[in-house]
């Protein structure tokens, strides 16, 4: 649960302290129920702002009523009923106003061609509307965290290190654009899905990578972003259990979480994969993640595997290896080769070169890296000098390695990474003198 809910509810609680049981039920309802409640209220309001208000009010009512009446048997159904009632009250109040506003295009239940789409859940309509490709990726991310995950605007602003007014304006613009452009509140049909799903997955991936690699410093929100991405991927896989790329995304996130604890040391410094204590990896999460990665591969049968399925497969090979040296590097390189045909990228090329060095040695990989260095897209990418530095160190060219580590340190925006690279540079200086 985002830490904001507790703060938000505090004034409504009066002097009464919530019992642990009520507190836990509220947290669980917020984390797993927000999208369910809001997405069905949108059907009533045909307006996101009104639906947000009604959903918020329903949670406030729960904070007030649950301690007295006890937690209802089905908290989400309780919240949905209350939110819908609040929404209807609001509509009656604002009827004159509402008629002047362009409303969301919500198809009636009856004229929705039921067989056109094989999945039906209000949450999916919400997700696909928030992640419509006609919205900019940053707008999609903000909308998804607000409307699907139920974060407040200040929380989203904090997670993405932008000011509150900036984030508020971004959300307002995005909602306005949905209405003005006529983006509908409905599930894409099966034949639209291949075009629409990548736009959704890109949102989950951006949330995850912002938490996982934290390109902008080691903010306190990193773990929360990873958790949110995991929740989104879990929801998607629950709603679309046959989409291999959804499973691949969830697998990648689960495997990342399983190893997350060893990625930084007690001082908050980055620990490279090679030096991580594998006995501390979460074996249960690894089993889940590996099973999901296999499922994604199986469901791909006969087609080219998707990007996230390949990421999952690579993560699974790493997670199952007993040590860095005993990793199945042949398999990793083969997977990178497929990934390069599916989605050519010099960054993937770099990762492949690093993996190849474990088979053919650092000198051969260094040649690959020198070739990639000509790519203009890598000019300001810290990973290029960082990978080069590692290979130079391994062939004993310490002075050059030190210089490359230093270049990488000036290019990275991540504080933990910068400290790690600077330390390596100093080690190389010492080794060279």
């Amino acid at each position, binding site marked *: 649960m985002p830490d904001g809910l507790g703060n938000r509810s505090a004034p409504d609680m009066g002097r009464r302290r919530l019992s642990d049981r009520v507190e836990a039920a509220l947290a669980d309802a917020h984390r797993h129920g927000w999208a369910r409640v809001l997405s069905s209220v949108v059907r009533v309001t045909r307006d996101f702002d009104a639906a947000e208000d009604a959903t918020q009010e329903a949670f406030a009512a729960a904070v007030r009523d649950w301690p007295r009446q006890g937690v209802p048997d089905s908290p989400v159904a309780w919240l949905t009923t209350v939110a819908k009632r609040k929404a209807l009250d609001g509509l009656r109040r604002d009827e004159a106003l509402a008629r002047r506003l362009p409303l969301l295009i919500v198809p009636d239940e009856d004229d929705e061609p039921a067989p056109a789409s094989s999945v039906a859940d209000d949450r999916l309509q919400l997700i696909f509307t928030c992640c419509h490709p006609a919205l900019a990726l940053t707008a999609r991310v903000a909308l998804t965290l607000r409307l699907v995950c139920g974060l407040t605007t200040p929380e989203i602003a904090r997670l993405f290190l932008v000011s509150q007014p900036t984030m508020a304006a971004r959300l307002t613009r995005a909602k306005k654009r949905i209405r003005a452009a*006529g*983006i509908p509140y409905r599930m*894409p049909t099966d034949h639209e899905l291949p075009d629409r799903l990548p736009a959704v997955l890109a949102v989950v991936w951006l949330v995850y990578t912002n938490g996982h690699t934290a390109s902008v410093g080691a903010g306190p929100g990193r773990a929360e972003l990873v958790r949110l991405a995991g929740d989104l991927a879990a929801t998607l896989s629950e709603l679309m259990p046959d989409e291999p790329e959804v499973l691949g995304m969830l697998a990648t996130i689960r495997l990342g979480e399983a190893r997350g604890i060893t990625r930084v040391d007690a001082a908050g410094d980055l620990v490279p994969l090679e030096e991580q204590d594998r006995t501390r990896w979460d074996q249960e999460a690894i089993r889940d993640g590996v099973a999901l990665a296999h499922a994604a591969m199986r469901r791909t049968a006969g087609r080219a595997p998707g990007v996230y399925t390949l990421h999952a497969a690579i993560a699974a090979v790493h997670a199952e290896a007993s040590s860095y040296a005993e990793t199945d590097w042949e398999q990793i390189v083969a997977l990178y080769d497929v990934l390069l045909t599916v989605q050519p990228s010099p960054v993937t090329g770099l990762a492949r070169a690093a993996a190849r060095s474990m088979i053919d040695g650092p000198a051969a990989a260094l040649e690959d890296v020198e070739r990639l260095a000509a790519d203009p897209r890598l000019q300001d990418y810290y990973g290029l000098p960082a990978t080069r530095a590692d290979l130079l160190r391994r062939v004993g060219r310490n002075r050059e390695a030190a210089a490359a580590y230093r270049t990488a340190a000036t290019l990275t925006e991540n504080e933990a990474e910068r400290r790690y690279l600077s330390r390596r540079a100093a080690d190389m200086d010492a080794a060279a003198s």
Partner: protein
Amino acid sequence: MKYMLMLFEPDTDWLSVPKDELDAALAEHSTFIAYLEQQGIPFSGAALRPSSAATTLRPDGDGALVTDGPYVELKENLGGYYVIDVRDLDEAIEVARKCPMGSGIEVRPIWDAAG
């Protein structure tokens, strides 16, 4: 909702292109129009003569300054348009996919004068 599909293409004087090329382009649009009719989608549209035939007016004091040429000089220009009446953006995109693509198609909602 009504949408305009704005068809951009390299500036072309269709009078000077070989006949088979012109016929092929016309046939593509005939196919598209047949699709619109078969789907029962209300539409209108027109093809534009090249931007070399354009005349532009700009505010000039109380009057207007008239110049030859298009408002913006581009390599690709608005070559024609369709106005379609569909349910929402997803349907508009679906229809636009079937339209001869040229260099690109901009999909713009049209203000509903009644609304």
